[in-house]
Every structure is written in C-alpha cells, then in structure tokens.
C-alpha cells in the first residue's frame, strides 16, 4: 500500500476539517496536507480522504485532476519548473525547457510533468512565477532562478546531487 496515514496527518486533517462548516469544504486543504507529507497523492490517499470527508472517491478525484500542482505520481527528487507565460515564453522558456529535456533524456513535446527514470528530476512547465522582468525564470523545488541561460541551466543540474 502506497499510503498509510500517520497519527500526525490524521490529527492535522481533523484540525483542518474543523475549520469548515461542511467537511467537503476541506477537500483541497487535506490534499495539500497529504502532498506536503508524501510528495504526491496516491489512489489510496484519495480513498482515505474521501472517507475522512464523507464523500465518494470520485468527488476528491475531480479536485485532484483539476489542479496540476496536485501530483498523481511521485515526483523526482528535484522538481524543475520552467515558467512559460508570455514574458518567459518570449525570453526563451521553450528553448530552456527543451534544453532540460534533452539533457535529462525526456520528451520535450509531451504534455504534463515528466520524471527521469532514476527518479531524480521532474521537469514541467508552469505558469507565471511573478518575475516577468527577469525572464526566463524557473524553480528547483523551493529555490528560484532568474534569467536562466542554457549554461546556467547546466550548472543548476550539476548542482543537484
């Protein structure tokens, strides 16, 4: 089983649920809490959430599939997010994404996040990271990088141990 709710998670979720007038309203926050702990949300986690909120699994699955930031697959150790909104697109975001994919052996034309076979990197496009003046920008995990050239990109990858 890919999902086992810890007592801490259970307590956190109970606390979250108590913030809302109806249990269902806590859905998104519960999913966030799970993703924070496990990095992704498995089918078992969806079923657990549904039970907690007195819903059917499909009700939770609808939310999970709506938000790309909620993961249905485990992520790589390093999550590379390349901004592709207008300024970054003009500033070479697609080329940057392509560069990462080529370097890491991924398919640049595939839709959605992709993870390398060794589970080390996940590369994906995201929308505006609110630093449009320094395009193209990207993040690795919680770290933010501006004006990323291909050379800088190589250094970033090399820095990921």
């Amino acid at each position, binding site marked *: 089983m890919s999902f086992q709710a810890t007592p801490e998670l259970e307590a956190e979720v109970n606390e979250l649920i108590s913030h809302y007038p109806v249990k269902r309203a806590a859905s998104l926050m519960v999913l966030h809490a799970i993703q924070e702990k496990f990095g992704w949300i498995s089918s078992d986690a969806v079923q657990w959430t549904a039970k907690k909120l007195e819903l059917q699994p499909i*009700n939770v*699955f609808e939310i999970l599939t709506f938000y790309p930031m909620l993961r249905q697959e485990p992520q790589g150790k390093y999550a590379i997010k390349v901004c592709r909104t207008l300024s970054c697109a003009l500033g070479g975001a697609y080329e940057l994404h392509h560069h990462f994919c080529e370097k890491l052996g991924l398919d640049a034309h595939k839709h959605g996040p992709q993870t390398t076979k060794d589970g080390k990197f996940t590369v994906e496009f995201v929308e505006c990271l609110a630093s449009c003046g320094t395009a193209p920008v990207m993040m690795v995990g919680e770290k933010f990088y501006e004006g990323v050239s291909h050379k800088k990109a190589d250094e970033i990858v090399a820095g990921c141990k």
Partner: protein
Amino acid sequence: MSTAATTETKTAAPAIEKIKVKIDGREIEVPRLTADWSGKLTPMTMIQACELAKTDVPHYCWHPKLPVVGNCRMCLVEFGTPALGPDRKPVINPDGTFKIAKSPRPAIACATPISPGMEIYTKTPAVKQMREGVLESLLINHPLDCPICDQAGECKLQEYSVDYGQSASRFVEAKVHKPKAVDLGPRIMLDAERCILCTRCIRFTRDIAKDDALGIINRGSYNTIATFPGMPFDNNYTLNTVDVCPVGALTSKDFRFQMRAWFLKETKSVCTSCATGCSVLFGSREEKIYRYTPRDNDAVNASWMCDAGRLNYKWIARADRLKDVLVRGQKSTWTAALNELSDKLKKAPVGSVAIIASARQTNEELWLISKLKAKLGAISDSIARVGDADKLLVSADKNSNTNGARLTGICFTEMGVNLQPITDGIESGKIKTLIVFGENIAKHGVNKEKLRDSETVGEVVTEHSLTPELLAKLETLVVSDIHANETTKLAHFVLPGATHAEKRGSFTNGKGRVQKFMKAVEAPGDARAEWEFLHDLVHNVTGQNGFVTIEGLFNQMAKEVPAFSGLTWQAIGDTGVTVQI
C-alpha cells in the same frame, strides 16, 4: 374492494396561487409554485412556464426530473418585468397594462423563476444569436461522427444544429481529442468526445440512483466524465444515464451499433420483470426487439427503469420457443387440440381438474381462466416469485401481475396456499387433470444468478410440493408455455403461448395500477396469445360466447370483476389507472 377506480394516486394538492406572464406576446396564467425534480414545491421557472405555453425552449442540461444546474446556457431567453415607479409600484400604461422594463441581459430559462407580469421573449434575433453561439461552442471539439453514432436520429445536438447551427464550421484550430470508447461499467460505454458536459448523468446517478459514482475530471477543454479509477459504474440503474444523455456520449453496450434509432418501431408496453411494471417502449424492427426504454409514467416509474428489467428481453427471441401445438408428443393443430381438450374437460367430474396459472399472465387471460375454473369446479393457484427489492423501483415480487391473479380469484392473497391441496389431490387420485400456464412446475430450483452472468433477473420461484413423479400420475397434463422445459416434456397437451411483446393485454401492478400494453412483434410459428385460445376453450366448455377482441374482453371483465368496475380499455390510457387492491 370495489371502490371506484381513480386515475391518480395522490390526494389533491392545496390550491396554488396563479400568476399571469406573457410568453412571446401571449398571456398565460400559470401556478406560481410547481413541483421540482424531487416533488418539492418551488417557484415555477421560465422554462416550465414556456412548456405550459407549448413554447419550445431548447435545452441540454435541464431535465424535469433532475436538479437544475444551469450549465449549458442553451436555454437563454430575453425577458422583461413590470417597471417600478418612484413609489416602488408598477408603472401602468394608458391602456391599463404594465409598463415593461426589458432586461438588458438575457437569463437562463431553466433556473430563473417567473414573477407576476413578466414577459419572456423566446423568438427575438438576439435569442437566436445566443443559441447559435452556444451551439457553435459546443461543437468546437465535437467529433461530428453522427454516421456511426448510436444517438443519431434522437440527438439533441443534431436537432438543435438543424435549427440553429451553421452548415460549415468556422473552427480552424486543432480539435482536442478525447478517449472514444471508455468502459465506464459493465453496461455503459462512454465516448468522451461527444460529451457536452451537461452533467445530467452525474446528477441522475447521484440524486436519483443514490450512487455518486460519476464526476468530471481534468480541466478546461480536457474535461471528461469519469468514474474513480478501479470503481466501475455499476448500479441497477446505469442505463438510464444513456437515456438522459442528450447526445451520443453514453451508450448502452447492449444496444451499441445494433440498429439505427430511426428504423425502430416503438410500441408502448410494460416491463414484466417485477411487480412494479415500469412503463416502457419496445424498439423493434422486422419482428425483432432491439431495446426497451422507459416511458414517462409518474404513477409508476417516473422516467426510469432498472437495468435488469431493461435487458431482460432476449428470452422473447430465444431459439427454444415453443412453436407447435403438441398432443401426446405429436404435432397437431389448434382446432384439433382444442376440440379434444374441450371434450375432455366437458366430461371431467367436478373437482377433478386443477389449474396453476401464472401471475405473469394478463388480467384478461386470468379472468378467462377463472371462468373455466368456475365451470369445472377447479381448484387453482399461482406460484410466487421473490427476489430483492430496492428503494427506487424494483419490487421483491417478481411476478408482473400478482394482483391480477388475486383480483380475478385465481389465487388467494397469499399466493401458493393451494399448492399443497393440489399436490394431495393428485397424490390421492382425486385430481386427474392439471392445466398449467407459464410455470415450469416440474422444476422448482433456485435461480439466483445475477443479471451480469445471465440475461435473467435474479429471482427465486418459491418452494412448492409438485414434483415430476407426481405429474406422472396425472391422466391429463395440459401445459401452455413460451419455452420448452421439463414440464412441457411431460405434458399431454402443449399449447405454445405468446410473450407480452406479441399480444395485447393489461397487468395490475403491485400498487394496483392497471396498465395496458400493445403488441410489438408476431409470435413465432403456431404460438398464439393465450387469451385467444382461452377464449375458444371457455366457449367450448362453458357454452358462453364472449368477446373476441381484447377491448371487448377487458370491458366485459371490468363489468364482472368488482375491482375493475367502471374501467374501459380505452379509458385506462397509456399510463393506466389505479384500482383498489
């Protein structure tokens, strides 16, 4: 037992205030409140008022029996309400009418309540333009595969496209492709590309079938109807989603690619798989039935039917149908067999004949059997069939006409109490002749197989004491049935009968609703409707002549059977009449 029949079961509702609205310039008075999908009184909406005024408002997501969501926008109309003066009172025109303030914005007719003096405009150029716009957006990613789509011919997308669509698409971008044959459950296949996301299917299964199994996953133009992975869409009402789906997205695996809808002849009938007796339509072509679909009847099944009943039609065309009249194993003719049988019965001493009729026979047939019974001084009964009931439609009683058998005096309120006396009579040699209709009494096994495994509805014929050894003691065993079985093999006379699809007649359902059904297809070979040969038999044995049409028989029965008093074949109409049971 013989209080007058009524057409409605409900008691009269309290008077509801009426208000006047104008629809396309025509004034109509409508109730301010009306029953919503769940039967609760709610303010009447524009679309309901338009329906009363017989003004068509195109719609996709709205369905009278489902909660309102207002997501498709196809029903947009323009409207105005009485203008208010500075005193907050309506401004009156010189001619005494209200001055109307036309709303600058349209409204969705399905979710906007009417108010006194409101004017609704459904035919303005702006409304037409809005409909065109909505339709064009709906068709953006639509595959337009009508030539291979089961819904073609009964598709709202096609119908409204004829009315409001453009012949050429202006959409030059690439269409989003979605999965085309998604296995949603054992009986349902989804073509995600054809779906217009009206959510009727979601609402049906959540609010009517009480199985919240469907949802919309993904985002934007990738939105798709789905189940939770690994949890198939499988309740006993799933096929109703195919009916409510306004397009060809949800298809019945059973009907998929079998027949074009426009070739089907539709016959009004009744489901015989349980005592609920849902009103249905048979779709048939060239003497073959292709599908059952539910027919609206608020006194019985609203607009729904169960999957088990819907798919329980293949037995009608089964290869082992009885097609010949057999006398002691030899092929015979109706005339010869009925003459010989009539002579035998005429000579039979009182009390030497027993009759086991089927509670799946029609009221008319059971009534004719009761005449035979009276003349012969025969003991009679039927055999109960039980299964599971549910909260929506399905009855635990799996006989379609238990009440008919009771009301015509074929069995007592507790069906089956006479089976032991019949057994004893045969055992002691007192009963020498047994006439059996539609019951395989030589076999009384338990049939619990579920719908998925076979084409039968899960049901159990209740235990009884009749055995093949016992039947062998009889001088004469007369069996009328649909299919060859253990009992017909033992019979001296085999009279091939007709299914309800092959004849007309009426049933009395578990709540006393008398409903009639029409003939869809011809019976195979020499098989004949039971009421036809029963009529001959009754005539020969009793000397009484009766009616030779189903109308005449029904009306005569209504005169003689107290519970049916006052009814006529014509007056029971398409949705039936409730009698006191």
